[in-house]
């Protein structure tokens, strides 16, 4: 059972009751009680997740057991071969790139990787990518373009790594170049924001023809804690900041930033990764088909116009009175 978040306490209470019951000698009554409690958990979860606050969504998006990019790669694709390194400096473990087979076609996969246990989390630098990661991603994507293979990018990072070496090796330049070059990739590019879409570090592999986003994922210009620290001068105001930033999937759909919300199982993707994968599979397959059907020049023009329009919703044109 994945670990429970604070707001899931009602579920925790029911789980404890089940645990206590399971200590008792087996009986029809006991089995009926457990079944009843298990059903109750599903409905309590459903109730909780129907009314998640933005901050609670942040917690779900960052859940330590949330499926990672490699989890989805393993479940969705076959014949995955990871390719390493930016051929400039190093191999960044916080971004994974590789060749994969999806249904009947060859694709390139790019994604942030956070790691699922402590050892892996450290190895993956908790999904904080360095410049090498973005450069590896671009190199791999240009290889996909060369061979006419579609690209799927999985986005799940708190941010690009804010460290001395990131700055020395030009993380800003690496992200900037990806933004410019991804806009011009001639092959279909589909983005899946499945966890944390952490500002520029997320966007650095998130320019594409379609942007899909998981129901409980977040995508933000700044982490709510950082926003609270700057604007409220108190990082504890993260709950308010997360609401103000409009970082949830429904908010971003309304703002015209994402194209589609991928439903998650009740209680979030981490409670049933297999079901989460099935839901993603349907959306991804359909989207790739739509985008691949477009002629190259049309696809590039639509991709340009898609980002070109972002923000129009926030602009008025009026002469000073």
């Amino acid at each position, binding site marked *: 059972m994945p670990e429970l978040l604070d707001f899931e306490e009602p579920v925790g209470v029911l789980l404890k009751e089940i645990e206590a019951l399971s200590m008792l000698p087996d009986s029809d009554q006991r089995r009926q009680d457990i079944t009843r409690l298990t059903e109750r958990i599903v409905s309590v979860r459903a109730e909780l997740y129907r009314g998640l606050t933005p901050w609670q969504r942040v917690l779900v998006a960052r859940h330590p057991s949330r499926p990672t990019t490699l989890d989805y790669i393993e479940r969705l694709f076959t014949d995955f071969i990871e390719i390493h390194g930016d051929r400039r400096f190093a191999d960044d473990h916080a971004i994974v790139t590789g060749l994969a087979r999806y249904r009947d076609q060859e694709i390139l996969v790019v994604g942030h990787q956070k790691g699922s246990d402590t050892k892996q989390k450290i190895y993956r630098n908790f999904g904080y990518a360095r410049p090498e990661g973005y450069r590896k991603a671009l190199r791999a994507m240009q290889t996909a373009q060369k061979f006419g293979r579609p690209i799927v990018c999985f986005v799940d990072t708190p941010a690009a790594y804010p460290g001395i070496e990131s700055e020395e090796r030009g993380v800003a330049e690496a992200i900037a170049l990806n933004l410019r070059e991804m806009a011009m990739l001639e092959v279909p590019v589909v983005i899946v924001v499945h966890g944390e879409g952490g500002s520029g570090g997320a966007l650095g592999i998130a320019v594409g023809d379609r942007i899909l986003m998981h129901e409980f994922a977040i995508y933000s*210009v700044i982490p709510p804690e950082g926003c609270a620290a700057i604007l*409220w001068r108190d990082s504890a105001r993260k709950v308010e900041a997360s609401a103000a930033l409009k970082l949830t999937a429904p908010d971003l759909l309304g703002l015209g930033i994402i194209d589609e919300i991928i439903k998650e199982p009740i209680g979030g993707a981490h409670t049933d990764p297999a079901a989460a994968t099935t839901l993603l599979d349907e959306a991804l397959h359909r989207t790739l088909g739509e985008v691949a059907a477009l002629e190259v020049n049309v696809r590039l023009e639509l991709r340009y116009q898609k980002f070109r329009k972002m923000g129009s919703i926030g602009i*008025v044109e009026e002469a000073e009175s």
Partner: protein
Amino acid sequence: MAWFKKARTPIAAPDKASRVPEGLWVKCPECDAIIYTRDLVKSLSVCTKCGHHFRLTARDRLLSLFDGEHWVEQDADLKSNDPLTFTDTKPYRARLEASRKATGLPDAILIGVGRIDGSETVVAAMEYAFIGGSMGVVMGEKIVRAAETALARRLPLIIVSCSGGARMMEGALSLMQMAKISAALARLDRARLPYLSILTDPTTGGVTASLAMLGDINIAEPKALIGFAGPRVIEQTIRQTLPDGFQRSEFLIEHGMLDLIVDRRELKATIARVLRFMMPNDAA
């Protein structure tokens, strides 16, 4: 095209006192020299004793670059409508109003088309006094329109950055301006039109990680703070104090991230020199 309908007539040089703190004399924060304001204005707000670069307003930046201090302003009427109805300790709308009053600008950027050493050029200059020069939807739209103007008329584009990064109060819409602008710059790039990025103090966050690092030539003013993550965020992450000069122009050029560092008083001549290399001979 709609882009051009809002073009303005050339603007006369505005009140020059806005360039530096008001008063007859200014004290340089670097060398403590007392400088006559008129001398400072003449030296483009660079300390005549030590070369410290005072921050320029967007308008003064354009004045310092265009021939005859004349240009045609583009898209002067675009304003943010506060798309998230954002409120922190103050409503964002109030911050916008206060910044508009203080700067006389509708948002943190000014676009002008004018001549630099005789050659017509599109220049965008950011205004730090407007919410830290932050990049929101208006800045994104105005820069993209500037790039599209440059593309349509085959003119060079220059963007002078002076910004703390993406504007938090417009949320992910601000973040997306990085991609939107970079896509427009990609089109300029493929059309083999010059784009020069001028990085001034400070250029950080999403502005650095998009347009500021994408110049055919990236030119910084001396000692400008230039980086992606803010120094405080880095210190908190690595739990150590940052070395002196970290994320300054001189640090960046040492690490290969800039083409050159140019004193503001030489900037216009340098830009003209670079554009001669990039533009066909018959364009001037």
